[in-house]
């Protein structure tokens, strides 16, 4: 039993990395615009489908497909933010919930109509298949690749937020949008760019995750809970908190399903309730 632990942990970390990649956009959006975007999973789904179309229908290499996934989701995010989301920033949570559920329904229906309701296959490049040995443990190459990419991106994001001027503007706007605007920060632009980036990352996560999470039109609803969970537990607007929460949830979900398969998703929901009880403001909530 315990001998499987390193493998389970590794899978959990891989799963957590995916959760982080998709959820980080949601976290920043929530922390920045205080907007509850239940449709965030739809952007991931867009990325996933673009990746499938790129590799299977257009025959493009996997790397290119990933870039395409990122770009498509980012563009979708940019357009929707400018046209629709922007007008709802000050609205009540109920309005935001209803709007994003509506968007989600529309995206699911569109995906079903275009691609059918089945699971999408993915063709991974040869180099990423198979297993390899790391620290005496047999791990999947693809999952290793996943963790690598996500950690690199996470560090990049952290650097962006802490070292660049744009990152400083993001942090200022998260802390206090009104004052930041008063200081001359183009808050609207910060919102736009962040939303676009966050959607793009979600799209990338959706594409990378086809092998792990699967891809079908119900993706946004199926995984919505997980993304929200990561954000709420980790604390909206923080990178470290989101990463920590994603890892914890990823590991617990995988471990739960492995060691107590009969409990299914029960473990993760119970864990969420417990964590929210203990940390009602998230693991690492920025003090307002």
């Amino acid at each position: 039993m315990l001998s499987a632990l390193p493998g389970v942990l590794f899978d959990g970390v891989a799963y957590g990395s995916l959760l982080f990649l998709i959820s980080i956009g949601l976290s920043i959006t929530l922390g920045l615009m205080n907007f509850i975007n239940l449709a965030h999973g739809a952007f991931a789904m867009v990325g996933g489908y673009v990746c499938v179309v790129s590799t299977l229908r257009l025959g493009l290499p996997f790397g290119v497909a990933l870039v395409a996934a990122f770009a498509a989701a980012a563009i979708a995010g940019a357009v929707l933010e400018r046209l629709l989301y922007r007008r709802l920033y000050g609205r009540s949570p109920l309005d935001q919930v209803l709007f994003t559920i509506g968007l989600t329904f529309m995206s699911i229906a569109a995906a079903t109509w275009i691609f059918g309701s089945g699971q999408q296959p993915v063709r991974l490049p040869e180099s990423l298949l198979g297993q390899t040995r790391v620290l005496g443990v047999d791990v999947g190459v693809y999952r290793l690749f996943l963790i690598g990419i996500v950690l690199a991106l996470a560090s990049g994001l952290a650097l962006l937020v802490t070292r660049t001027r744009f990152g400083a503007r993001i942090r200022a706007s998260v802390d206090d949008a009104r004052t930041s605007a008063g200081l001359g920060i183009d808050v609207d632009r910060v919102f736009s760019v962040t939303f676009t980036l966050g959607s793009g990352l979600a799209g990338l996560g959706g594409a990378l995750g086809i092998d792990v999470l699967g891809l079908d039109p119900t993706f946004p609803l199926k995984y919505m809970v997980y993304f929200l969970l990561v954000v709420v537990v980790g604390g909206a607007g923080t990178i470290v908190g989101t990463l920590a929460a994603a890892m914890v949830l990823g590991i617990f979900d995988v471990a739960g399903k492995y060691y107590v398969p009969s409990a299914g998703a029960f473990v993760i929901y119970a864990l969420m309730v417990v964590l929210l009880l203990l940390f009602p403001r998230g693991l690492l909530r920025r003090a307002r």
Partner: protein
Amino acid sequence: MSVAFSLPDSRWRAGEIAFWVAAALVYVIFPSDLVLASQVLITGLFALSLDLILGYAGIVSLGHAAMFGTGAYTAGILARHGWGEPLTGLVAAGLAAAAVAFVTSFIALRGADLTRLMVTLGIGLLLYETANQAAEWTGGVDGLSDMQVRDLFGVFPFDIRGRTAYLYTLAVVFLVFCVARRIVHSPFGLSLRGIRESPRRMAAIGSPVQRRLVAVYTIAGAIAGIAGALLAQTTQFVGLEVLGFSRSADLLIMLVLGGAGWLYGGLVGSALFLVAQSRLSRLNPVYWQFWLGLLLVLAVFFAPGGITGAIAARWQKGGRR
């Protein structure tokens, strides 16, 4: 004494009476649609219970199906194991759902809007999984059937065409509705609206905000449980979807359609939604979902001030009723 001119008074209005008379007449006018009509009433009651916490107290919940499902399974399990008397089953279901609501209120009502959203969602999912796993009791994915619901008052059997079911449902829904109506027009109801508008102000005038919210959440839970039990007893079947997220989400949509924050919103919305769904979704489920989504998006943008604004507009008119 013209002093109460600017308060919505609690006399039954002509429109209201017309509504219930019409509901009773459905029995005579649409005898072949009684099953759908029962569904409309049941779901309408369920929506009313959500409106109590959403439209009146301002709590956005994505997991209200938890209480509905608890009621359904309670009535179902009781009927399966020999306790088929419908009325007491109804009461038991209401109490069980109230208990679930009461216990979960302490975690569900803490924190800011998003946390509450998440916790209510999580509780709904938790119960869903629990029901899924406890297949021995709930029938799991296959659902709970084999219920022996006894005759109502020992005299009226629940027949296939749903005649007894409809009158039973109508009577129960009407009674519970009257209770909800009283609550809404009472000082307690006023304090709930005050809490929705400004919990800070309410605390500053001495209102025990948390206690009131727990109270309304429990009452709403009980009502949802009764609706669930009605569903179980009239269809003699309980499927997992009674606890599912779609139920909770569809409910929100019904309140959008009918308007939250007034008593008939849930009933009207439920009628619109279910009738439309029975006609349209049969044709093409994908289209149904798409148009539903589009409707939500449009409603948020074009209803004056969004959904919550529409509530306010209604109260403005209501103040002069």
